[in-house]
């Protein structure tokens, strides 16, 4: 411990604490511009200077370690004078456009000028170089006239996103933030994540999407206290009605599950912000990608569906909910009666909430009496993840996202363009590689962004993944890099498995895959020799032809090297959509109830029959592909499609269109009148994520809340409400007052989720498996090689 005196207080702080930290720990506020807790210290703004007895210079508290015996004053006359001069110098270059500035009221320069009574600059005799706002990109606005050169944006770009798109050009008073060659951001490596906007302490950087006077940052969290004070001092003055607020929710663009803050004004989303508190933004700590930060304007789109539509004479016409639901209920009942329950299929979505996914399968199984439920976006993912279930016992990412940033020493990324598909995970991998020295192996037919950074890029021919991985394992065994102790104690099936590897010599594999022998060997060594090796894989080209073999292959690789059951290791399938994991967890698949409880298992079936009070079908249902084929043959008569657009997105869209055309009855539930909705007999208008409550489960098995920010447009309703109404009309009452009630029912039937409740999800969410209310959740699975299925299963994949 270090003992020092600050403002007359004797303090004891741990060795290595900076003066700034010591002050903040003890409630002493020091003004700062360039300091940001998530970024490297720069020590350049000099606002945080303090006086230290016996030192001729003022000390920048952000970068000066506390020393024994220091006697510090943080607001002495000379310190205040230095801060005033610095503020006046900054004001002499910062053109005051506060009237129209988004940061007005949340601007550090403004705050500190107020604090130190700096009304104007005595140094402002003009002449400061100013640069035009000329960057025509659609997202980020940089106003040089407001820039105070704190360089936080440059450091955020370098250290959080690792895009390294901006830097500092020229020197002295001409120094400015710039993209390479002083060109536009669009021609730089900028990925428009907007982390620079997030860290800007003034209004120099702002969002072009949320700007244009839609709502200032300061308006959004105006506290009751402040308005009360206002009332106290001006009792006769009529208060403006503040209707601004902000709501924390979970982003819907991919499986990462970033927390974002929706800024609301008069029942409209006017912007997206970061919450940088790890306790509320656990996955991303405020970092977002271009989609999350700037891609929210669809919420307010005039093209949103606002009323149910019924097809009449080949065209869709508006209808009331009563009319539309009555029609759907009658037609479904008719078809069930005439053609049997299996003539119906529910093609659900991986974007809807857990509660909605749960109700979708409950409706399908309980009301329609069939297990024909599957999801479009699950194509590929569950198959690969099934490989994990076969090998380890649980089909999900074994480890957490944070471990990719902090714990993994070698990351093997296969068939995933992570920085595009899961941008925030991509950032974390890049950060680990660039700033912590982790090794990176990328196997991808594309030269992805990560491949450019990799120690080795294995550019295999699409479809040769099996040979590639088997080749790497061949090398690992040949070079004695296998973890025989782990194999002996934690796994089974090794003897049979190893025999099949003999033929995969690097030379043979090189011929099959097109990857040079040396690269295969290097990749194998890097991964096998790492203290903690992590595998991440995406769907890539393997969607079609590998199936669950893909997962098994990579599980073999992890078990062979003992890279499982410790932080920074594991086999991690990156889930594509925001609730890909949750949709499968909730039983939105033809073979299992929520929590991967098989529909063919009579004990499981009885449990659900008892809870739901209805008899359930015992046979596995149709997978998506089977359902489409059956529709094509004319055997499937009615389909509900939830929030998906397969006539555009499916691998074989003509096949889908033909199949849909052959249906007797098609219901499409969506937020927009999609291409698929045009084929529907009834279209039901759904609320989007900003308009409803619920939970999502992200790719790392973290269950997180989504929260209602605004009302849905027109008559649109949340998907869960629509299912409830329909089910009730069909004689199976579902009367949940809230999504929480649905979640409560679900968790009593789903052991993995049994200990998860809404109150427990506040803040950081919870990782399943979480079997009881006392259980803290499980960040990484199969601890110390104790697999969920008992022993890890090596399987032969040729």
């Amino acid at each position, binding site marked *: 411990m270090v003992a020092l005196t600050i403002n007359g207080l004797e303090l004891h702080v741990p060795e290595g604490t900076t003066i700034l930290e010591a002050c903040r720990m003890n409630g002493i506020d020091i003004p700062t511009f360039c300091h940001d807790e998530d970024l490297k210290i720069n*020590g350049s703004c*000099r606002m945080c200077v303090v006086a230290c007895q016996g030192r001729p210079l003022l000390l920048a508290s952000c970068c000066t370690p506390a020393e024994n015996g220091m006697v510090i004053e943080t607001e002495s006359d000379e310190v205040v004078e230095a801060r005033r*001069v610095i503020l006046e110098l900054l004001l002499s270059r910062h053109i005051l456009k506060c009237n129209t500035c988004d940061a007005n009221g949340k601007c550090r320069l403004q705050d500190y000028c107020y604090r130190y009574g700096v009304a104007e600059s005595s140094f402002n005799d003009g002449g400061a170089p100013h640069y035009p706002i000329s960057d025509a990109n659609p997202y980020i606005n940089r106003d040089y006239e407001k820039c105070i050169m704190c360089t936080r944006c440059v450091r955020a770009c370098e250290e959080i996103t690792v895009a390294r798109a901006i830097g*500092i050009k020229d020197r*002295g008073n001409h*120094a400015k933030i710039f993209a390479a060659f002083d060109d536009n951001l669009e021609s730089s490596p900028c990925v428009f994540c907007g982390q620079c906007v997030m860290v800007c302490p003034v209004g120099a950087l702002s969002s072009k999407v949320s700007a244009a006077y839609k709502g200032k940052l300061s308006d959004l969290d105006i506290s009751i206290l402040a308005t009360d004070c206002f009332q106290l001092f001006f009792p006769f003055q009529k208060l403006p009605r503040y209707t601004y607020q902000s709501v924390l929710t979970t982003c819907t663009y991919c499986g990462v599950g970033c927390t974002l803050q929706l800024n609301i004004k008069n029942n409209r989303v006017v912007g997206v912000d970061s919450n940088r508190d790890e306790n509320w933004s656990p996955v991303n700590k405020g970092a977002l990608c271009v989609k999350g930060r700037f891609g929210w304007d669809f919420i307010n789109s005039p093209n949103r569906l606002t009323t149910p539509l019924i097809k009449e004479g080949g065209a869709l016409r508006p209808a009331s909910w009563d009319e539309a639901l009555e029609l759907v209920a009658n037609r479904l009942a008719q078809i069930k009666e005439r053609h049997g329950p299996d003539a119906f299929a529910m093609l659900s979505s991986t974007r809807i909430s857990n509660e909605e996914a749960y109700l979708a399968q409950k409706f399908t199984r309980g009301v329609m009496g069939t297990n024909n439920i599957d999801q479009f976006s699950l194509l590929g993912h569950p198959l690969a993840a099934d490989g994990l279930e076969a090998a380890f016992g649980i089909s999900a990412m074994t480890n957490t996202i944070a471990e990719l940033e902090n714990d993994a020493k070698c990351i093997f990324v296969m068939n995933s363009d992570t920085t595009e598909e899961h941008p925030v995970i991509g950032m974390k991998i890049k950060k680990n590689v660039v700033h912590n020295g982790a090794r990176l192996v990328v196997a991808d037919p594309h030269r992805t962004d990560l491949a450019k950074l990799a120690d080795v890029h294995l550019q295999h021919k699409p479809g040769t993944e099996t040979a590639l991985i088997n080749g790497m394992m061949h090398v690992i065994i040949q070079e004695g890099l296998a973890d025989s102790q782990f194999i002996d104690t934690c796994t089974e099936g090794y003897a049979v498995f190893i025999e099949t590897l003999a033929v995969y010599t690097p030379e043979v594999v090189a011929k099959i895959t097109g990857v040079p022998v040396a690269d295969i060997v290097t990749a194998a060594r890097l991964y096998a020799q790492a203290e903690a090796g992590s595998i991440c894989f995406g769907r890539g080209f393997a969607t079609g032809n590998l199936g669950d073999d893909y997962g098994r292959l990579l599980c073999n690789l992890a078990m062979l090297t003992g890279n499982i059951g410790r932080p920074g290791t594991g086999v991690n399938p990156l889930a594509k959509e925001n609730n890909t994991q949750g949709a499968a967890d909730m039983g939105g698949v033809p073979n299992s109830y929520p929590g991967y409880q098989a529909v063919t298992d009579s004990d499981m079936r009885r449990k659900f029959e008892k809870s739901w009070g209805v008899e359930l079908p015992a046979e596995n249902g149709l997978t998506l592909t089977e359902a489409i084929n059956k529709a094509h043959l004319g055997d499937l008569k009615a389909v509900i499609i939830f929030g998906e657009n397969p006539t555009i997105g499916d691998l074989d869209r003509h096949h889908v269109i033909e199949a849909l055309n052959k249906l007797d009855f098609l219901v499409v539930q969506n937020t927009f009148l999609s291409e698929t909705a045009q084929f529907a007999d009834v279209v039901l208008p759904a609320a989007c994520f900003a308009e409803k409550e619920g939970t999502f489960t992200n790719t790392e098995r973290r269950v997180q809340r989504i929260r209602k920010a605004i009302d849905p447009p027109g008559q649109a309703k949340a998907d869960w409400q629509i299912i409830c109404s329909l089910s009730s009309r069909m004689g199976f009452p579902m009367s949940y007052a809230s999504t929480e009630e649905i979640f409560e029912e679900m968790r009593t039937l789903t052991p993995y989720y049994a200990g998860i409740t809404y109150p427990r999800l506040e803040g950081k969410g919870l990782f399943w498996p979480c079997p009881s209310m006392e259980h803290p959740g499980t960040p990484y699975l199969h601890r110390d090689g104790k697999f969920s299925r008992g022993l890890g299963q090596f399987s032969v994949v040729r």
Partner: protein
Amino acid sequence: MAEKMGIVLRNQGRIDPLKIEEYIAAGGYKSLDKAREMGQIAVIEEIKKSGLRGRGGAGFNTGLKMSYSYSIKTAEKYVICNADEGEPGTYKDRVILESVPQKVIEGIAISAFAIGAKKGYIYCRGEYPRVAGLLNQAIVQAKEKGVLGDFDLEVRLGAGAYVVGEESALIESIAGRRGEPRFKPPFPPLVGLYSAPTIVNNVETLANLPEILEFGANWFAGIGAKSYPGTKVLSLTGDVVNRICIEVPTDVTIREVIDEFGGGIAGGKRFKAVQIGGASGAFLPEALLDTAIDFDSLRNARAALGSGAFFVMDESRDIVDVVTQIAKFFEHESCGKCNPCREGTFRSRRIMSKINQGLASTEDIKKIRRLGHVMKRASLCGCGQAAPIPILTALEHFYREFALKLITS
């Protein structure tokens, strides 16, 4: 009568700088051999004992600096010779390097041996291409002779930034980054180039090392001023008769430097002012000329020896105009990292120009004083801290000249 003295420049003109054989014949590289016999700790102790202090301007005890780097046990360490001689009016390093390059290289090698570094850099001012060429030849010769052992030395050229003469900015530049100073601590002897312990020494400092080892610490400590022993190589510019580079013991006075070595004021004019230490140095009037030039005596006179540049001005010089030009220099050379320096040097220049043009009032004088005091104490590195010194000292000693240019209300 003060006398000049040759330690650093002992063999100047007597040996061919491009012939290592002549340097060796004159006893060169014996000190390096001796250092290897003495061992690292003994070398560091000897240098500490000699009292040698850095000749680049900061005046830090050279042996003490070495001991910091020595104490860290790591394979990767660096020594850097700071030959980025950017201080206007300073040209002593160029003279040293052009006349005795092998002596500097030997000094670097001794320093590297003492701390355990295997790699060294000479960071040479970009405006000195001839010196860089000469150094490269000298290094090739030293390597061919095998005198450096397994120590590797490389010349890096600067690209014209004054602030890169600051050691941490210089380190950043060698590492391929923007030449901006780092905050300290940590200091480079502990965390320097590529985060490894790094000793950065001025050319002149390093050139003293072979002599100290050859003749002993006691001999060196007995020369010149007690607290700043040895000699100092000075560069004289301005209105003196002899605009030369000269090596003198550190106990001579400013007056002796100007009158005896500089030959007095040229053209029979009267002395007005001298700026010591380069562009960032203080302006001193006649009354302070009997101050000794050593580090501490000058500091007591609120000046600094700095790089040892003496810029002498005769009675015909317009101090306000000179200070304005200096302010322009700092505006141009500020790296732009910290607020007080980036904005402060810019505003200082604007106010000085205003005064110089006769457009300013006493309000402006107040402003520039206020600004200068904050810059001096709150800037990140020596550049911003020193930039206001010429302005503040000129105001202190030559206020009359400023007053004459002000608008009288």
